[in-house]
């Protein structure tokens, strides 16, 4: 027999049976709304930021290609090679100190030539559009102007040179590509650094060169050629396609994490969908049986209810999409400076389609089993008392569920930026679902096998866990997920807070000072002691160089020949800070090899950080070749060191014996620790006066910024995770409501037989209490493990949960569950037995 009802007829009946307000399917609607809404919002936000970064690449970079070198100008040959590609613009970046009267402030000096900006425009705060500042003038970022107390037209001093403030910066076209800065920007003419003596040999400055290519060429291919032509130049080359790689990486990582949280919310929502659809169809049991009496086949039933549930799923998902789009600007605002660009109201069809697909697929996977069960409700259900739901027809379930799952996994993996993380998440979610389903079965069978208590209420409580039609399975999954989400949230939040507190190191110096000339150290000490008596000063030689080759003397590996940089060997990328010392640096400890004696004069040696040594598979006695101001030097590896990165002082991966590099021109980097609690307002102005070419970085400002960044990250994580918790709560409430419906009968009969309200409340309390207790323990383990993965594996923070607070949150969750369960049975308890009986 194959004459199943045509879809149009099935739709007519489905529409009739579906009340206008989707009564009974509200749990499905709520769950899909939350899950799809979260994914749509996240997708829209990250998609719009990534697109913005992609399309504005040329403007962000200020050209098609940018080259950067440390501590030297570009050579004639290099300039010739770049000039052949297109128009050039030169510039320089460095830290400097600016002063105006009694005020001083560290600034990020951005020296630009007349060609700047080649792409985009500099917009001043007063609305004027400007090019590079004229001779003897500067454009200041609002922060710098405020610190110096100057306005347009006032004068300031940088490196002893007088500059007139020609305007305050409103929008700087290439700000994003400049990356993290230690002070507010001051845009100055290209020749200022040299005139102010800021580019003396050894000074910490970066030369920049940007190319605007007239023809549309593939910049990546050009970069490849340049790297091959100048393998040891130490260029850091960037193209318009990856103008702000740091921001891109951050956004895509954060986006992926948020999508995973959204998916988690959807998985939780899926359980709600399953539960919601099951109770909806359970309530439709009589209707289904009646339709069968009237001649509907199983196929007809499947079509009718598939259409109904499909309609509800579509409605819930659409509502979620709308909410997702509406909430995106709010999300953008909440994340604030964490995002490289602030998205306004965006409509991203791709992200919305993906969210919709996730929603409908999850609905398909979770709604199919109850639908398959309903399909097989016998017509005889009308004539005989309630029976336990039939087992779902496995064959009918297998195909749609299998297809749905495959589609979800494919979609998630196809759009994953970090495949292993996404794969791990999917496997984890599947394992958790399987575990909770198994636990539900176990609790059921244990309750069935347990000896029957003598007290009738206790007996009833126990029986409720395993009787036919019991909601134990759904409750265990919902409670398990819900409580785990509570624990996860608490663990993540307290760990983040502790990390923020801890990452502000107790031992952080108050100031970093760069470019202190070696022969002026004593003057420097005297100035500091006068302005801040008792301040502690630590000075180390600061050089920059690039690793060119490493390995055994007989067969060294050239970095230029490497296709990929080995994992953990970040020090191979571009120029790195170098230093030399007679002693093991403070806070470091040797793990292998020996330190050179004071005044050592043998073959030049180096000590390497142990993590880097492991990543490069280095051994004591191996060689290392570096390029220092364009000169190659080869040294022997004498020792490996462990560095305590938590101490925020000078931590160098490469420390040389003084005779290896001390002859190269260089300055000192100095830290200043003020006596605790002391402020030294005179320090900055005195330093600027005494050492105009040195620059100061204030740790306090830096730490404040880092703290703000971390707390914004925690807002992002928490707001995404709250969606998962909300979904969990919806599921929980749904499961409790479904369970309540099936036990109304018992309660009424028990009331008729003389049970008091208090006794009935105790009965509920016993049942849910028992379940909650078991599941609280499970949630502690599961939520804790997930939190650990998020904190340690994904964000690479320290594992620092505040357990008393986590337990308190869990207890609140359990109390909420019990409260809801009890509140749900109150109306029933208030009713008079006779009246309740009539309503049964």
């Amino acid at each position, binding site marked *: 027999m194959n004459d199943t009802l045509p879809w149009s007829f099935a739709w007519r009946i489905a529409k009739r049976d579906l*009340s206008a307000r989707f009564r009974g399917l509200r749990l499905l609607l709520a769950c899909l709304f939350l899950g799809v809404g979260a994914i749509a919002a996240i997708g829209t936000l990250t998609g719009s930021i990534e697109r913005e970064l992609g399309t504005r690449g040329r403007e962000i970079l200020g050209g098609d290609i940018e080259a950067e070198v440390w501590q030297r100008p570009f050579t004639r040959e290099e300039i010739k090679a770049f000039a052949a590609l297109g128009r050039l613009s030169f510039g320089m970046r460095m830290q400097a100190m600016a002063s105006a009267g009694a005020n001083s402030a560290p600034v990020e000096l951005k020296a630009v030539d007349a060609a700047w900006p080649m792409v985009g425009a500099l917009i001043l705060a007063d609305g004027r559009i400007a090019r590079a500042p004229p001779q003897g003038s500067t454009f200041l970022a609002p922060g710098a102007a405020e610190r110096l107390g100057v306005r347009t037209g006032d004068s300031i001093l940088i490196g002893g040179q007088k500059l007139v403030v020609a305007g305050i910066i409103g929008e700087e076209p290439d700000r994003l590509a400049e990356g993290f800065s230690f002070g507010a920007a001051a845009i100055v003419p290209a020749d200022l650094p040299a005139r102010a003596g800021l580019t003396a040999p050894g000074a910490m400055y970066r030369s920049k060169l940007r190319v605007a290519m007239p023809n549309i060429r593939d910049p990546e291919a050009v970069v490849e050629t340049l790297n091959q032509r100048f393998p040891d130049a130490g260029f850091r080359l960037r193209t318009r396609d990856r103008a702000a790689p740091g921001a891109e990486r951050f956004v895509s990582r954060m986006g992926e994490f948020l999508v995973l949280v959204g998916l988690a919310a959807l998985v939780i929502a899926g359980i709600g969908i399953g539960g919601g659809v099951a109770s909806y169809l359970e309530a439709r049991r009589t209707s289904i049986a009646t339709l069968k009496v009237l001649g509907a086949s199983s196929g*007809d039933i499947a079509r009718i209810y598939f259409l109904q549930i499909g309609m509800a799923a579509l409605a819930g998902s659409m509502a979620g999409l709308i909410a997702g789009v509406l909430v995106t600007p709010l999300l953008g605002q909440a994340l604030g400076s964490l995002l490289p660009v602030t998205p306004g109201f965006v409509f991203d069809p791709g992200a919305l389609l993906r969210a919709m697909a996730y929603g409908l697929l999850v609905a398909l996977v979770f709604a199919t089993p109850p639908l398959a069960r309903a399909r097989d409700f016998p017509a005889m259900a009308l004539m005989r008392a309630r029976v336990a739901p039939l087992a779902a027809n496995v064959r009918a379930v297998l195909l749609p569920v299998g297809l749905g799952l495959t589609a979800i996994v494919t979609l998630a993996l196809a759009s994953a930026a970090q495949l292993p993380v996404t794969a791990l998440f999917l496997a984890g979610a599947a394992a958790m679902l399987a575990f909770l389903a198994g636990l539900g079965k176990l609790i059921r069978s244990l309750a069935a096998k347990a000896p029957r208590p003598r007290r009738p209420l206790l007996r009833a409580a126990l029986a409720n866990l395993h009787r036919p039609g019991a909601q134990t399975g759904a409750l265990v999954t919902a409670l398990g997920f819900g409580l785990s989400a509570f624990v996860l949230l608490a663990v993540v939040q307290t760990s983040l807070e502790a990390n923020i507190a801890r990452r502000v190191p107790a031992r952080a110096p108050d100031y970093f000072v760069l470019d202190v000339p070696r022969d002026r150290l004593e003057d420097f000490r005297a100035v500091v002691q006068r302005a801040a008596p008792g301040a502690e000063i630590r000075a180390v030689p600061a050089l920059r160089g690039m690793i060119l080759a490493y390995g055994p003397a007989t067969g060294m590996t050239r970095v230029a020949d490497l296709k990929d940089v080995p994992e953990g060997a970040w020090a191979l990328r571009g120029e790195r800070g170098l230093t030399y010392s007679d002693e093991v640096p403070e806070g470091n400890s040797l793990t292998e090899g020996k330190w050179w004696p004071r005044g050592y004069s043998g073959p030049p040696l180096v000590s390497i950080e142990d993590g880097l040594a492991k990543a490069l598979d280095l051994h004591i006695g191996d060689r290392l070749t570096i390029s220092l101001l364009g000169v190659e030097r080869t040294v022997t590896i004498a020792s490996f060191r462990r560095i305590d990165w938590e101490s925020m002082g000078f931590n160098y991966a490469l420390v040389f014996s003084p005779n290896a590099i001390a002859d190269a021109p260089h300055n000192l980097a100095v830290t200043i620790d003020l006596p605790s609690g002391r402020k030294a307002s005179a320090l900055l102005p005195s330093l600027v006066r005494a050492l105009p070419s040195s620059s100061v970085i204030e740790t306090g400002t830096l730490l404040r910024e880092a703290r703000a960044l971390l707390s914004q990250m925690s807002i992002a994580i928490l707001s995404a995770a709250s969606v998962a918790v909300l979904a969990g709560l919806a599921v929980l409430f749904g499961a409790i409501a479904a369970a309540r419906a099936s036990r109304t009968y018992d309660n009424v009969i028990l009331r008729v037989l003389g049970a008091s309200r208090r006794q009935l409340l105790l009965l509920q309390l016993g049942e849910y209490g028992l379940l909650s207790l078991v599941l609280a323990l499970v949630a502690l383990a599961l939520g804790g493990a997930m939190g650990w993965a998020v904190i340690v594996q994904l964000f690479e923070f320290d594992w620092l949960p505040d357990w008393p607070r986590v337990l308190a949150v869990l207890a609140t969750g359990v109390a909420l569950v019990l409260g809801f369960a009890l509140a749900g049975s109150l109306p029933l308890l208030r009713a008079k037995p006779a009246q309740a009986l009539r309503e049964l």
Partner: protein
Amino acid sequence: MLTLGEGDSAVAILKGIDVTVPQGQTLALLGPSGSGKSSLMAVLSGLERASAGSLTVAGEDFARLDEDGLAHARRGRIGIILQAFHLLPTMTALENVATPLELAGVADAGERARAELEAVGLGHRLSHYPAQLSGGEQQRVAIARAIVSRPTLIFADEPTGNLDAGTGAGIVELLFARRAETGATLVIITHDPTLAERCERVVTLADGRIASDRAA
């Protein structure tokens, strides 16, 4: 033969039933509670499959059909009226009556349902929901629903069981009148001897077996 349950809990509900009902006959199944009347009706109407034995309805061997096959076989051929009415609560009276026609793919289901409701005197209640109808009205909708597809066989399980005597009598009149107009076979399950006497034949069940089979 009908046995429910398995193993130790198996209960034989119907045993050795052998009955033939000619087309157009009215037959009453009489017997005390638990005698197997409703179960026999469930088997005869294809709501339940017999554990053993054969059942032929209008030339079709019901014993060979599965649940879905029975559903198809019922369409347009068998009308069933239940004691508790079992109207679909989310549908109006008109929609309730139209449903079996729609399930059978009849194009003018709406008009035919309207005509049938008018025939049972509910032309003014078309758009009312079951909850807005009295018990008697609900049962009249159920009768209209059972008859609308002009079945050759109508089963009525205690059709007046949930109604007061006056309303019940009206329903019985209506049922017999509509049957007479359509010429269908009517099987009524009842423990009301007066109602049974209105049928041409009375089969009495006791303990799952036929105790007597006589003309009324």
